[in-house]
């Protein structure tokens, strides 16, 4: 990181403009930006915010699904879920590492999460109430994540783009597993199908919110798109998601809880109802069903683990001393 500190010595505005122009040219020509390359401060900050938020979402996302590990109804389902939740933790790791290349430490990112300064996806503040939620999360939440993340495999920042390639492969596996689980439920007893319908009713709208507010209200979009760290508009991706999910729900024999969904022949896409953005902003503010619980779980894990991390440091120091003797 030292080279970047030197780069950030005061430069004249002409020089800066020239550097920025060169930077933008690289991006326009799809040349990846790597950690040691010069980058504008805003690019660095925006990326740190975006990647760490994504990492936090993976980690917090382990909590709602983790709750069902001990209640999974078969040994096969239990293995699948355990492996899935472990994958999500792995995604968190890749993403924290990608963010670290921008000159922020993992501990700093954790502290930002714990203080409420950094956000994570609003979806994980909803509760998992039945086993069917695990299937619906795989289908819709991992599905929406894929929709958001596949384009980011082409984003301008090298480490982030490469992390996305690895993550997307696993997410699509999760999505298929979730859907397969729902097929089993929907073909099963009436009560299983009712469970699946109830889960869809609760998760549908929050899943649509995962794409973020309407483009018109999206604060950082334009600059991020110029920098190619955001590749598509929120509304465009949301539309794509609805179009993919409608036939899937039909296949399952489930009803999406939106009576405005209808095929629009002219636009060759589905019309759908208005998302309740008040709810979205409320959850972002911390007023979702599980916000406090999720954050507390992370803070507790951090605080309860302090003595372990201290011991690891102390032990490393002792080892270093004895090996340098």
């Amino acid at each position, binding site marked *: 990181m030292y080279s970047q500190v030197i780069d950030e010595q005061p430069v004249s505005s002409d020089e800066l403009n020239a550097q920025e122009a060169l930077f933008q040219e690289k991006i326009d020509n799809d040349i990846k930006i790597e950690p040691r390359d010069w980058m504008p401060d805003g690019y660095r900050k925006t990326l740190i915010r975006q990647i760490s938020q994504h990492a936090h979402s993976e980690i917090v996302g382990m909590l709602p699904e983790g709750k069902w*590990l*001990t209640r999974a*109804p*078969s*040994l096969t389902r239990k293995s699948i879920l*355990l492996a899935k939740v472990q994958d999500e933790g792995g995604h968190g790791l890749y993403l924290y590492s990608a963010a670290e290349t921008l000159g922020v430490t993992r501990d700093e990112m954790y502290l930002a999460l714990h203080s409420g300064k950094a956000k994570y996806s609003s979806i994980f503040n909803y509760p998992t109430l039945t086993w069917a939620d695990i299937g619906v999360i795989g289908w819709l939440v991992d599905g929406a994540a894929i929709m958001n993340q596949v384009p980011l495999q082409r984003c301008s920042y090298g480490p982030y783009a490469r992390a996305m390639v690895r993550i997307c492969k696993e997410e699509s596996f999760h999505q298929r597993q979730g859907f397969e689980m729902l097929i*089993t*439920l929907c073909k099963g007893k009436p009560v299983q199908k009712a469970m699946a319908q109830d889960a869809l009713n609760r998760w549908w709208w929050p899943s649509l919110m995962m794409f973020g507010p309407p483009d018109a209200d999206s604060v950082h979009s334009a600059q991020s798109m110029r920098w190619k760290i955001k590749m598509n508009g929120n509304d465009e991706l949301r539309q794509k998601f609805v179009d993919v999910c409608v036939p899937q729900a039909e296949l399952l024999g489930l009803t999406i809880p939106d009576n405005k969904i209808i095929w629009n022949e002219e636009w060759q896409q589905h019309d759908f109802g208005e998302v309740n953005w008040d709810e979205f902003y409320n959850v972002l503010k911390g007023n979702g069903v599980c916000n406090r619980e999720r954050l507390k779980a992370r803070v507790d894990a951090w605080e309860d683990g302090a003595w372990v991390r201290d*011991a690891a440091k*102390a032990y490393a120091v002792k080892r270093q001393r004895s090996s340098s003797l």
Partner: protein
Amino acid sequence: MNNNIEELSLSLFMGDNNLILSHRLSEWTGHAPVLEEELALANVALDLLGQARMWLEYAAEISEDYKTADDLAYKREIWEFRNVALVEQPNGHFGDTIVRQFYYDNWHKLILEHLYQSENERIAGIAEKSLKEVRYHLERSAQWTVLLGDGTEESHNKLQTSVNHFWPYALELCNTNTANSGFDDDLASLSRQTWIDSLSNIIAEATLQLPETEFSYSGGREGIHTEHLSLILAEMQCLPRAYPGTQW
């Protein structure tokens, strides 16, 4: 009368220990002190679950009462479970979990090395597959035992308390004094002393001390458990019990 009573008893003992310990370890998900450790714990939980399935599938084949590994996991009553009390004990803090695991991994490796030489190919096969994983589990729990034992004063004291606390539960693993266990020969070869010897290097490196108390819990293999198991089973079996005969 079942001709394979010894094999059945052995595979239930191995399967249940792994299944219940895996359950406990999976409870750490989202709560571990370091992200890397969280993934490692989930990994051990996943390995043990896989091993439990192999043992329980074998048990189901020779059992006259249960047809599948899932039946054994989800339909048995508490008194039919054969695991030791150690694996039922709550996770406690991270050091508690490490010590419980260190005791278990040492025993697990020793018993698998023995079972690997079994004339029963099925048993030898499961042992061989498991052994690869368990060697790694032991490496990890031993490392953490040393690190926490020889870390700070606080971590040292915490670990010593954990070492003392789990001792009588862990001794049950080597308890050959129980009737009708079905494979006393196997267990007898793994005496208490062999197991204690296997611990001593790491415990010394960790600057910890093993307790001298002789008292050992017993009864797991006859289906007598601590209260914790009833809660574990209530949680684990809730769906199959609420909706009998359902495919998931």
